[in-house]
């Protein structure tokens, strides 16, 4: 036997109350008193074991120290997996620590860099329940539970899978509970207290199994701790403090009948190692410490022990196999447990599950392959670790250095209601991170709704300057990150807009509120809600009276402005730094008298977009309430509930860029040629330098184009459609009411009329997709407006509303379906990170991604910020994923459907939801034997279902629980293939 006292293991002379060796044997933790606080230190084991390592200065001795406990730490315990460390102290808290990777060595700020932590251990949970000092903590076998005991006379069982859930509080002791130990098979837990009793509790129902008092009758209540221990084979329980004939002993309690016939004699500040086959102690060591021994921990191989003492020192005892015998391996131990106690649920965990019989060789293959992949990934990860500094230093593709350089410029600063400066800090790392992914630049937990509520709830102005090249927090609150501007203002505001946009307009029709606004306003400022607020505050009456007589004129003028603006933007589109003005959408609906709102669309360079054909258009629709005033003025005899959308007014000329790659734009010149007194309008289209033009007899109000068609809406409700070469495809379509918005995607043409009806035609196949569908159902009843329109490549129209909801029209069902909701709390609570295949797969593009913007991504991140009970989390995640799958299906976006379906399936597999998984598989598989009566479709949104199932199989194969399902599907697919 070798005995070593490593003097470098100390708490600066303060007592060490607890020691525990990490399950992998590479490090150990000590807990005790620190400077004015409790202290937990993690030490490197190798300098204890090997003299060479102790002398090598490059090998760190102290790995990490944590001063977070407010008072003395009484106990430190590693979880069996070694992943967590639990510490309990006089501050009544239990802290659970986890190692944070990727965050390199750091020093405590202000400590002159002397105390660098080599490893970063981060407190992941603080468990609060005890009303007194926590004396001992213990992890159950397989880490399912964590038990803690306290001087408040209770033992608390925590759910170690879902901290800080409490499973049970064991009451029954009438004195300070000072020690805990789990039965190695997880059937019992024993506690010892100052009330001179040792109690054994059942884990089945957390009730008392037995209370043993006899050996403790003579004990005094003077010990600091009463750490008892269960023998590894589970047969014996050894208590710490018993008296036999006035002599201190270690009482042995047999599992069989809880008999107390044996004890170990002879303790006085000594360490006694007892070999059970001998009658005498193997070794007794005297005067090892100045003060009493507080804790003992065996090494994994069972040949060494670490002992700590109140005097602040630690000793290591190293035995040889000759002295102690051969230790059993974990498997052997487990076998003994099983043979002795049988299989119980408590000891059946993943580890055991993996030893279950694999019924299908294919399953085995998948498991093997998976392991191989994991290995590959690991080696890739280690390779990456070589350049870890660069990995860690990058946030959002920007290096930390770059960020720091521009931090002051980029940091979002606002003013609160009382005029104070408020800075939104830049989030540089998530917590609890093994993964160093900071998906969003600012630390606002952004999802549309949060950003939205932030905007609306703060009555204080929130100006968020947007640099288009900066991924900003505001990106998510926009309906979509596309450069769409939905600006809204009343006449007064509008004229200011005009100023700010440098559009030519006469300030003739200024209402009084304009006078109160500064004449020179930067574009951004014009949309500052502070300003909007002010213009709202100005009395509405004068403006109203001035509007009534000249409303028509005014409208016209505004339309002119409206039409001019896109061009202005277009011209300046080369300037990538162009600021995008934003208006508070909520301000829009509130105002009573609200005139036209404009639609601006601009393509921005430097922002890559996967599909340029999916081009959202923004516009606003007035709800009936907002319209009343205008209706009176215009003497419209529309029914009371009719919706009315803004109509583009005629203008002399305008240009519209359809796409930049390939470059394609449309020019319209109205009333250019006079032939025999007849004015003609000219439509010009330029596509990659190839130009064509045609003439129309009436003035063109609006135009739209895609790579396949160009269409224009003229006065007299006429709609004309041309091919890419300028050939007329259809004779003019007569619209039911004047055009409001026109949009093309592929061969689909969508027309939204002023009466709020929507039509979509497939021009190539010459069929109607959506026939004069009213927007009434989605807009009715509130002051909602349409903020954005999208037409997918499959001709599905999608309306984004101002309240953050998006509906698409399902032509086969003739229904409006909700496909996205920014207010959706599901998206925020859903956490399916574990099911994400890899980071890049998240970059799934398609109409759904465009509609939902970045929310889907950031919501996922924000989910970490909420602490939700696991069950709720599961349910919300399921619900969210199902929503996504259904939405992708409704939008007929096959790519996204596949993405979300796989993700959903992976989540089901990970969380073990069998029924839903089985249903999915059944549907994907279909009937194996063909029958005429079958309703089964072999494809879904253009994807072959069985191909999808083949993709699903490896996912299912990851969980052995589903091996039956896996086998079933696999076999049936094989049958189908052989046919």
């Amino acid at each position: 036997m070798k005995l070593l006292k490593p003097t470098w293991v100390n708490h600066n002379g303060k007592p060490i109350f607890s020691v525990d060796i990490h399950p992998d044997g590479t490090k150990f933790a000590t807990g005790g008193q620190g400077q004015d606080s409790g202290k937990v230190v993690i030490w490197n084991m190798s300098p204890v074991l090997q003299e060479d390592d102790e002398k090598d200065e490059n090998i760190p001795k102290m790995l990490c120290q944590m001063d977070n406990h407010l008072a003395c730490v009484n106990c430190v315990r590693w979880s069996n997996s070694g992943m967590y460390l639990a510490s309990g102290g006089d501050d009544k808290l239990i802290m659970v620590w986890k190692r944070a990777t990727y965050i390199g060595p750091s020093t405590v700020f202000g400590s002159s860099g002397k105390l660098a932590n080599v490893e970063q251990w981060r407190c992941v949970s603080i468990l609060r329940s005890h009303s007194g000092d926590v004396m001992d903590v213990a992890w159950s076998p397989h880490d399912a539970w964590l038990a803690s005991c306290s001087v408040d006379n209770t033992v608390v069982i925590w759910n170690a899978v879902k901290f800080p859930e409490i499973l049970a509080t064991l009451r029954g002791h009438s004195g300070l509970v000072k020690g805990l130990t789990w039965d190695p098979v997880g059937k019992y837990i024993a506690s010892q207290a100052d009330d001179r009793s040792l109690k054994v509790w059942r884990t089945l129902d957390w009730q008392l199994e037995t209370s043993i008092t006899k050996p403790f009758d003579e004990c005094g209540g003077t010990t600091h701790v009463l750490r008892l221990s269960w023998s590894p084979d589970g047969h014996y329980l050894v208590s710490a403090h018993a008296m036999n004939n006035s002599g201190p002993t270690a009482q042995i309690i047999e599992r069989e009948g809880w008999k107390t016939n044996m004890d170990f004699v002879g303790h006085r500040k000594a360490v006694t190692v007892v070999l059970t086959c001998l009658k005498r102690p193997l070794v007794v060591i005297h005067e090892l410490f100045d003060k009493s021994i507080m804790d003992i921990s065996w090494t994994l191989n069972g040949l060494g022990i670490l002992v700590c003492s109140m005097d602040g020192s630690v000793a290591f005892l190293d035995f040889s196999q000759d002295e102690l015998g051969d230790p059993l391996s974990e498997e052997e131990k487990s076998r003994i447990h099983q043979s002795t106690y049988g299989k119980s649920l408590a000891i059946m965990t993943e580890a055991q599950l993996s030893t279950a019989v694999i019924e299908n060789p294919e399953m085995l293959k998948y498991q093997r392959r998976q392991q191989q992949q994991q290995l590959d990934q690991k080696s890739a990860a280690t390779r990456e670790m070589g350049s870890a500094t660069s990995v860690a230093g990058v946030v959002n593709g920007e290096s930390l250095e770059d960020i720091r350089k521009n931090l002051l410029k980029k940091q979002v600063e606002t003013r609160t209601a009382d005029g104070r400066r408020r800075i939104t800090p830049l989030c540089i790392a998530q917590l609890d991170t093994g993964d160093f992914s900071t998906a969003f630049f600012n630390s606002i937990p952004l999802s549309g709704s949060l950003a939205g509520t932030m905007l609306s709830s703060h009555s204080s102005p929130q100006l968020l300057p947007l640099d288009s090249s900066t991924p900003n927090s505001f990106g998510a609150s926009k309906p979509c990150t596309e450069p769409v501007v939905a600006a809204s203002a009343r006449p007064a505001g509008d004229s200011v807009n005009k100023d700010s946009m440098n559009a030519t307009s006469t300030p003739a029709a200024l209402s009084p509120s304009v006078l109160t606004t500064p004449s020179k306003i930067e574009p951004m400022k014009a949309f500052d809600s502070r300003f909007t607020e002010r213009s709202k505050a100005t009395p509405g009456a004068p403006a109203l009276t001035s509007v009534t007589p000249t409303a028509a004129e005014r409208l016209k003028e505004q339309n002119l402005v409206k039409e001019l603006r896109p061009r202005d933007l277009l011209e300046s589109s080369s300037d990538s730094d162009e600021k995008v003005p934003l208006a508070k959408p909520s301000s829009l609906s509130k105002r009573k008298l609200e005139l036209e709102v404009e639609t601006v669309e601009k393509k921005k360079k430097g922002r890559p977009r996967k599909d340029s054909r999916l081009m959202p258009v923004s516009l606003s629709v007035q709800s009936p309430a907002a319209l009343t005033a205008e209706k009176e003025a215009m003497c419209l005899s529309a029914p009371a509930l009719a919706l009315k959308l803004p109509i583009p007014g005629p203008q002399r000329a305008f240009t519209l860029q359809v796409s930049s790659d390939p470059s394609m734009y449309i020019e319209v010149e109205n009333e250019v040629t006079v032939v025999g007194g007849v004015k003609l309008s000219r439509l010009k289209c330029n596509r990659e330098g190839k130009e064509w033009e045609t003439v129309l007899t009436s003035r063109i109000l609006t135009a739209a184009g895609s790579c396949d068609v160009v269409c224009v809406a003229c006065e007299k409700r006429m709609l004309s459609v041309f091919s890419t070469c300028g050939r007329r495809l259809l004779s003019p379509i007569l619209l039911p009411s004047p055009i409001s918005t026109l949009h093309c995607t592929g061969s689909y043409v969508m027309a939204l009329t002023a009466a709020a009806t929507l039509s979509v035609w497939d021009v190539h196949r010459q069929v109607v997709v959506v026939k004069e569908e009213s927007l009434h159902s989605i807009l009715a009843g509130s002051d909602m407006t349409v903020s954005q329109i999208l037409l997918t490549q499959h001709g599905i129209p999608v309306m984004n509303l101002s309240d953050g909801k998006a509906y698409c029209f399902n032509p086969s069902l003739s229904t409006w379906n909700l496909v996205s909701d920014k207010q959706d709390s599901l998206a925020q609570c859903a956490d399916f990170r574990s099911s994400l295949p890899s980071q890049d797969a998240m970059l799934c593009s398609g109409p759904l991604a465009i509609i939902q913007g970045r929310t889907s991504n950031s919501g996922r991140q924000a989910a970490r910020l909420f602490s939700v009970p696991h069950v709720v989390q599961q349910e919300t995640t399921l619900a969210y994923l199902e929503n996504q799958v259904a939405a992708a299906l409704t939008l007929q976006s096959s790519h996204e459907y596949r993405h979300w379906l796989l993700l959903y399936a992976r989540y089901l597999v990970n969380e073990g939801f069998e029924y839903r998984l089985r249903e999915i598989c059944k549907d994907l598989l279909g009937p194996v034997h063909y029958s005429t009566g079958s309703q089964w479709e072999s494809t879904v949104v253009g994807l072959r279902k069985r191909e999808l199932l083949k993709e699903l199989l490896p996912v299912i194969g990851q969980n052995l629980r589903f091996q039956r399902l896996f086998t079933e599907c696999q076999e049936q697919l094989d049958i189908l293939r052989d046919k």
Partner: protein
Amino acid sequence: MAKVSVLNVAVLENPSPFHSPFRFEISFECSEALADDLEWKIIYVGSAESEEFDQILDSVLVGPVPAGRHMFVFQADAPNPSLIPETDAVGVTVVLITCTYHGQEFIRVGYYVNNEYLNPELRENPPMKPDFSQLQRNILASNPRVTRFHINWDNNTDRLEAIETQDPSLGCSLPLNCTPIKGLGLPGCIPGLLPENSMDCI
């Protein structure tokens, strides 16, 4: 346990002319999302003699603060020279960065600041009335004095007033280039500015 710990404070643009703004890049870590904003302050100690010459250069709210590591730049204008006693204009003084949550201060970072003339002639014969435009401000960035206080982070009632950890390694001496001039180095001469235990190391 403190929910917010300051990881680093980098002093930007140092040394700089007296009139240029203070800029600190502050990185901190938050273990749980905070319900309310943090309030940061920069306090310039005009005179070691009395607290009444302290100037709050600026205070700023920082939020929202979710769990994680964050950083921001705190910029504040230079102190108003008219509020600084003439005798204290040149020499060593202190600038403090404090952070409070719910009105309770939980960290205080102090830096020694040396104001001196760049021009050797002025240094030899300083003018009677200090010429602030000629002064250079040098913050002793390498030696922050950090004091942490226990505060009540939640809204429950039990309050902890004790001073938290005071790192013994803080006990470093003032570097030589930063000669204490007006007896600033004497213990306790800035009452209330730095807690006693961090001053007695000077």
